[in-house]
């Protein structure tokens, strides 16, 4: 018996008992939908976790800190490959790690910017200007930093909106357009927090400390509206170090002479490598943190949720499998005579078995196919019409976002294959039974 005839005969038998077939198929549809939709919500959650975390910053980035305090070992006494402080040697070592594309030490200083009467206060991050591009900073206006830049600064794209006239308002009003053009207007910066504000009679830092005023030049505005880079100003680390030292001097604080940094930024090309790079750096005796650490733990959580949801779905597919077995067993009782006839007029035993397996497999396949289609439809509905309602439910579980349900192609294909396999497995015992029926007994059954 060739496969084509087998499929034809099996289809015929399924169509003949429409109601029963339909019920068995419906069972599989429900099971498949349960698995696929449940999993898709799990995937949706992990996608929205990633989306959320990406909005906080760059997932390629690892922040490195010296392990700090208590461990003040002289540079000469350091163990090979171990660093207690984040110095240039450590930076070089980090650069050598596989997967690391760029490293820059990072310092941060809170400065006040002034344009005419308008001022804004912002954290300024000093880094090596030549790595900016590698760190994936995108420019909206102007350009990124270059190696020769000193007092040139690049603004995160929210910072220009912060400029306000302290003599008129208490803070910047959220206008549609910044009140100054940081790229063309004359720009100054200073460590004096009260620069440009009305002098009060009270004794303040500003009255007693003479901060230097630097002439700066805005050369670019970044194009990362969503992540944290929007809220910082960037400049050359060497210049910023100088400014910081001068500010300390002005305040009468001691200035460290070493080139130890508080922090460094490491850019890893492939997000997948971030955790191994982090581990390697930690092995050097330094501390790291990255959004990826957080993402990993959230993904872990999402995987758990997927597992639980998928498990619930799997139970309903198991029930569907029992339905198929039941259908096939009933079908054998009903068709005992027919099986006997087929045997007597020349059906080989394996043919009988294949016929029943094929029928069961078809129930699984049809159910799986329809189930996947319906799941895709449900997924579409959840992501559009039902988005708000679903977000309300899922919000409490830490999910929710612009997508609720994600069905990767391999889940769809896998569910179809799984449903078919379940059908075949469910049909196995009935098929064996049909094969073993005595032809003679079957014919007597009238």
């Amino acid at each position, binding site marked *: *018996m060739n496969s084509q*005839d087998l499929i034809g005969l099996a289809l*015929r038998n399924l*169509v*003949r008992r429409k109601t029963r077939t339909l019920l068995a198929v419906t069972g599989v549809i429900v099971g498949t939908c349960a698995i696929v939709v449940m999993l898709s919500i799990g995937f949706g959650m992990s996608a929205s976790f990633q989306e959320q975390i990406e909005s906080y910053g760059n997932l390629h980035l690892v922040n490195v800190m010296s392990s700090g305090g208590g461990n003040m070992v002289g540079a000469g006494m350091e163990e090979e490959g171990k660093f207690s402080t984040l110095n240039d040697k450590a930076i070089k070592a980090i650069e050598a790690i596989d997967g690391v594309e760029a490293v820059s030490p990072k310092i941060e200083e809170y400065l006040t910017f002034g344009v005419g009467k308008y001022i804004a206060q912002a954290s300024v991050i000093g880094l090596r200007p030549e790595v900016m591009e590698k760190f994936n900073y995108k420019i909206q206006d102007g350009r990124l930093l270059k190696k020769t830049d000193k007092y040139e600064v690049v603004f995160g794209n929210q910072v220009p909106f912060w400029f306000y006239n302290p003599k008129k308002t208490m803070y910047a009003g959220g206008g549609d357009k910044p009140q100054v053009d940081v790229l063309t207007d004359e720009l100054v910066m200073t460590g004096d927090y009260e620069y440009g504000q009305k002098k009060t009679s009270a004794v303040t830092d500003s009255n007693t400390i003479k901060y230097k005023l630097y002439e700066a030049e805005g050369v670019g505005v970044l194009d990362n509206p969503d992540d944290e880079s929007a809220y910082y100003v960037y400049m050359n680390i060497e210049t910023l170090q100088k400014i910081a030292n001068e500010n300390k001097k002005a305040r009468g604080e001691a200035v460290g002479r070493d080139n130890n940094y508080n922090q460094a930024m490491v850019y890893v090309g492939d997000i997948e490598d971030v955790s191994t790079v982090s581990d390697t750096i930690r092995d050097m005796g330094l501390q790291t943190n990255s959004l990826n650490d957080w993402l990993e733990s959230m993904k872990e959580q999402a995987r758990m949720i997927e597992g639980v949801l998928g498990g619930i779905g799997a139970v309903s597919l198991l029930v569907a499998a029992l339905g198929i077995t039941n259908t096939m067993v009933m079908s054998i009782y009903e068709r005992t005579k027919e099986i006997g006839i087929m*045997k*007597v*007029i020349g059906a080989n035993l394996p043919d009988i078995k294949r016929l029943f397996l094929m029928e069961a497999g078809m129930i699984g396949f049809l159910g799986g196919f329809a189930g996947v289609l319906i799941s895709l439809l449900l997924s579409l509905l959840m992501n559009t019409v039902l988005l708000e309602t679903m977000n309300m439910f899922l919000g409490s579980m830490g999910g929710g976002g612009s997508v609720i349900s994600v069905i990767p192609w391999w889940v769809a294909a896998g569910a179809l294959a799984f449903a078919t396999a379940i059908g075949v497995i469910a049909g196995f015992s009935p098929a064996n039974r049909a094969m073993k029926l005595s032809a003679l007994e079957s014919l007597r059954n009238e």
Partner: protein
Amino acid sequence: MKSLIDVKNVRKIYRMGEEKVVALDNVSITIERGEIVCLIGTSGSGKSTFLNMLAGLEKPTKGEILIGGIPIHTLNEEKITLFRQKNIGFIFQAYHLLPMLTASENVSLPLVFRGTDKKTRDAMATEALESVGLIGYEKRKPSQMSGGQQQRVGIARALVGKPKIIFADEPTGNLDSATSKEVLELMTKMVKADNQTLIIVTHDRSVASYADRIVTIKDGNILSIEERRPEENEK
């Protein structure tokens, strides 16, 4: 004529709990190629058991059954099925057509199991239906045909693969006498045309008149064998 079926001292005992029932006591017979043999007997005489054993559906408790020299009582179920597929056609009292298949599909079913390709078997099925006078009924389902028509489909199905032996178990049991006559004439004419061997089981003496030899079975033994070949030659 060369002998096709050799039955030697066949005995069949059924165990019904503690009790033993002797269905066949000691049966020996030789059937030749091209012969039409009628096994006649009352219900419970053992004639159906005998037929089942000739067809390999049951195994004798004792004795040998050789068909074309092959000891079919020694074959396992898989081999006997293959043997039946190639050599044996069956006609049943209750027709036993598959209800979901059309007349043409029912007829070609044995060929499907043999793995014949669709084109060849459609042609063969049409030819077989033509020879039983059912042209125009190819697409009918069994439920849309009369008993006589269904039995003719059954005959076409039994003969389509050109088997050497055809077994007919009470082929006219469900038909009225006029239709019975038609069906029997058709059957005998067709097997004679192809020199096939036909073995009919019946309890109806009028059926027996179509046979070359009438074997009367009673209480598990052959009571008498009546040769009718001369008469057949007179026709």
